[in-house]
């Protein structure tokens, strides 16, 4: 390629507190080229992308476009420089037409007034470029997710974007929509756009990418040109480090506790999932972001009304949409989002711990502060929460301690099935180790544990069995004896079927 690259990164790095999310990195994207970034969860892909799109500022290094050094003050500056980000979660205003959405923020004016006809003409031009099947005056709320992505791409073209940054663009699309998007990416490349493409789906990467950079732990570990790229090579590079082989754990042959049959969630209505769990077993739900882990976990617990299929514990069917019923049947649920779904701000740690067991026995009307305090002290000790912390407001605790509170609040009732969504996301190593130890103790005492996790090490360390999901479908089941990172990743990325 001749001349300076469209996008050029030299030694770009970024830390969050003590964690170096991205170590100094060099990267180039040329016009008319698709450059794919792959890596496990937490490898630094999102950080890289936010730096390029001006959402974050680098601690060190230089970003240049066509050889000109850029210092983005924010996403707006990056957009003016010709970089368009298509985020993973497509957010577009729904209360307007496609043409309005394309013109939003850069309305064509004649004095004080908008010139709608010019806006519509431009919208028609760019919608044709992205092969959109809908008219410029279609209300956005009627568009599918795939069509909304086309809309955002059209908007980027209207802004004269030279570099398109696509963050997992196909993760929310049906197979047909994903195919359309890939055709579109190919046609944009042919028109000379540079494309930075982030995906977990290796078949897509292999088809589209002219170059692939593999990140691991915030560092580039490999770079492949199209000719040298293979699925096996990518997976090997992504895994890299040698994790200690999972220790075998004696699992007594217990009876079946949980039966899940024909479970369908709204997010992936086309696929249904069946599995069983034994008493005292630890099962991991593994898969990429958007593979349906959270939805399955919530459906098993009965958090949401919308589900098809049957969940039974000890032969008793769980009523969907009634956590009250599920908790009485012995379920416990630790959600992923601590702030939104877990912690009661302003309530003391003690009150937070007592929340799942306010009622000391079914039908009881009055609380017993003495017993609540006793219970709180006991479960706090079990979970490793300092007793001196019981009186402070829960939101002042560290993430790790909040996570322990959310887990410990169920221990007063000794649940039969514990469901956890990302049990250790964003918490420090020591707290993580304590939570892992607690989960293993609970399992040894007969509690079954079903957890969803993006952390490979966590899955390998805890799980007796792993259910691997790929796009809402159960791609395969790995017993502890067969469990290793390559197999897991291969199933999760769709590199091959089980």
């Amino acid at each position, binding site marked *: 390629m001749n001349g300076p690259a469209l996008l050029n990164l030299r030694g770009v790095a970024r830390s969050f507190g003590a964690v170096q999310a991205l170590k100094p990195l060099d990267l180039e994207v040329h016009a008319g080229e698709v450059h794919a970034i792959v890596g496990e969860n937490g490898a630094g892909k999102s950080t890289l992308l936010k730096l390029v799109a001006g959402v974050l500022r680098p601690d060190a290094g230089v970003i240049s476009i066509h050889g000109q050094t850029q210092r983005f003050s924010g996403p707006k500056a990056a957009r003016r420089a010709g970089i368009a980000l298509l985020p993973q979660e497509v957010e577009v205003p729904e209360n307007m037409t496609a043409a309005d959405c394309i013109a939003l923020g850069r309305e064509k004016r004649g004095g004080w007034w908008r010139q709608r006809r010019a806006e519509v003409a431009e919208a028609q031009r760019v919608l044709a470029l992205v092969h959109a099947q809908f008219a410029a005056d279609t209300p956005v709320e009627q568009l599918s997710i795939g069509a909304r992505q086309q809309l955002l791409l059209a908007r980027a073209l209207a802004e004269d974007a030279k570099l398109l940054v696509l963050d997992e663009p196909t993760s929310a699309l049906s197979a047909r929509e994903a195919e359309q998007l890939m055709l579109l990416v190919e046609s944009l490349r042919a028109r000379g756009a540079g494309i930075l493409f982030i995906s977990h789906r290796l078949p897509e990467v292999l088809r589209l990418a002219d170059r692939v950079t593999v990140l691991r732990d915030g560092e580039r570990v490999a770079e492949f040109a199209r000719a040298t790229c293979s699925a096996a090579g990518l997976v090997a590079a992504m895994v890299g480090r040698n994790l200690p082989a999972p220790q075998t754990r004696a699992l007594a042959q217990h009876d079946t506790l949980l039966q899940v049959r024909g479970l369908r969630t709204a997010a992936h209505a086309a696929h249904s999932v069946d599995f069983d769990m034994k008493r005292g077993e630890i099962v991991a739900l593994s898969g990429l972001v958007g593979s349906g882990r959270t939805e399955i976990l919530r459906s098993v617990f009965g958090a949401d009304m919308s589900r098809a299929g049957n969940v039974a514990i000890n032969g008793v069917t769980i009523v969907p949409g009634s956590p009250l019923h599920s908790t009485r049947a012995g379920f416990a649920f630790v959600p992923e989002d601590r702030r939104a779904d877990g912690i*009661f701000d302003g309530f003391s740690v003690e009150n937070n711990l007592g929340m799942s067991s*306010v009622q000391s026995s079914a039908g009881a009307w009055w609380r017993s502060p003495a017993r609540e305090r006793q219970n709180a002290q006991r479960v706090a000790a079990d979970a490793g929460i300092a007793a001196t912390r019981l009186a402070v407001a829960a939101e002042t605790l560290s993430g790790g301690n909040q996570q322990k509170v959310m887990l410990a609040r169920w221990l007063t009732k000794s649940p039969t099935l514990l469901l956890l969504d990302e049990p250790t996301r964003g918490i420090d190593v020591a707290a993580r180790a304590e939570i892992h130890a607690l989960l293993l103790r609970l399992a040894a005492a007969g509690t079954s544990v079903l957890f969803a996790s993006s952390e490979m090490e966590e899955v390998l360390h805890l799980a007796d069995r792993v259910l691997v999901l790929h796009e809402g479908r159960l791609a395969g089941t790995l017993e502890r004896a067969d469990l290793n990172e390559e197999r897991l990743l291969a199933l999760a990325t769709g590199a091959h079927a089980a």
Partner: protein
Amino acid sequence: MNPERQRILGIFGLLVMVVGITAALNPDFLGAYNLGNILRWTALFGVLSLGAALVIMTGGIDLSLGSMAGLAGALLPWLLRVHGWPAWAAMMLLLAGCALLGLLHGVLVTRLRLAPFVVTLCGLLIYRGAARTITSEQVIGYGVEHEQLRLLATGSVFGIPAPLLLLVGVALLTHLFLARSVAGRWLLATGRNPAAARLCGVPTNSMITLAYVLCAMLAGLGGMLFSLDLNSVTPAQFGQSYELYAIAAAVLGGCSLRGGEGTVLGVLIGTAVIRVLYNATNLLGIPTQLEFAIIGGVILLGVTADELLRRLRQSRSAL
């Protein structure tokens, strides 16, 4: 000191300040007759404020309670004098009717997911119309009959106004409910974080509905007491904008409209502040046109100070 107690002290300080300034400017303020009146009216409004507070604690709002009070307050003399019902039966019927309307509010809010503001705003309009239609717009009172019954609102025991005793009873029950009962804890948890409460197995929909039922019943009770005290009810006006006083008292008393916080004692002091301000504008010869503006101004001052103090605490604990 925990923030709840700090907040009660703060609002109590405001009460002392308002009382002090008024008493200094006009010594008549501290006269037994005037103080008795303030206490009586604080007690009557206190019943409504507690109802409003319960709904606000769940993160909702009840705009209908003034009309609800008006409906119950107008129908009580109507049932007694026009239809000759016995007092206990009429009061039971009205309380049950209010509870039913509260249940309807709760069901519309939780099952149909209608906005509390809209549901209770419609209630405000409908119950006013109902009160006017049923009583044919007649100004109605108890006349000279039912002297015994009227003692509930006008009497006193050892110099303590009877409605104040009633309020103390209601307040103690409410406090016990919030501080010691399972449902009370669930109600506050629902207001604080509905998603988390639900995932903890709390029947959040039932708790929200319960708050609307209790609020409606307290509004009915308050309305009947007001009507017994006044002995003359104009269906078109009786109880009008009481919901705003009640909501203002609850907010001033430490109930955040975000839900999940508030104390009975705070709400009672908040009610007292508003009544004292009202009384002070009259005593100090401030033009009555300014009355609402002054009450509004002091409430705004109170909640602004509270928010600033909260931020100060937060920035300190962050260090």
